[in-house]
């Protein structure tokens, strides 16, 4: 069984990988995980923390997750990507704890034989992640802090 916060399943030529981790996310690591000699396309999305929100300077921000349920929902997300599009391998990682400006909070990567599948699956996945995976972001400003809410 994978260590807490991390899960990897499926045959080696058709797998999904999910991770919720306090460590910095290296996009290249996830691209390597989905590389596949039979795939001609790798699409990815990286969410990074911005230095401002509505004109106010963000001093720092922190993510909190309901880790076991987040992993379960991320797994579901991967399975849906594979069910809806002809993607080969998918990896989704979300960081928790403090995340510096310009660092990645989320990475989603998919490989596919033809480009449309990976591109569409990744676009769908970030929307779905924001709507369904139990993770929260708190932003700290000079004059206080706020728990953000994703728009519908």
């Amino acid at each position, binding site marked *: 069984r994978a260590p807490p916060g991390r899960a990897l399943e499926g045959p080696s030529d058709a797998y999904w990988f999910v991770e919720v981790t306090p460590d910095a996310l290296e996009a290249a690591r996830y691209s390597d995980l989905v590389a596949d000699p039979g795939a001609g396309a790798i699409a990815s999305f990286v969410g990074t923390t911005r230095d401002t929100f509505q004109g106010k300077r963000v001093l720092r921000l922190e993510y909190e997750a309901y880790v076991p*349920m*987040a992993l379960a929902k991320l797994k579901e997300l991967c399975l849906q990507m594979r069910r809806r599009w002809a993607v080969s391998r998918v990896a989704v990682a979300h960081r928790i704890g403090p995340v510096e400006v310009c660092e990645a909070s989320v990475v989603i990567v998919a490989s596919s034989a033809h480009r449309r599948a990976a591109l569409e699956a990744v676009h769908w996945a970030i929307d779905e992640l924001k709507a369904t995976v*139990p993770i*929260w972001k708190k932003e700290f400003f000079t004059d206080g802090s706020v728990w953000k*809410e994703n728009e519908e």
Partner: protein
Amino acid sequence: MRVRVLYFARSREVAGAPEEALDLPPGATTSSLLDDLRSRHPGLAGVLTSCVVAVNHEYVAAGEAAELREGDEVAIIPPLSGG
């Protein structure tokens, strides 16, 4: 029966703890549990209006009440902001 209640983000801050164990009467549901929580933590009432509930890692649809069982893990889920 005993269930664990987990709090996150704003609900954790207002509840003052990340989780608590509660003894509930037979027949308790997520709906009756929320009533209990409102009386135990009056400050939570406002936050709970914008929260949903998950039982054992599955969301309970808004407006529905799920029956609870011994050992269930019930999470109070404020509006999501992952990504």
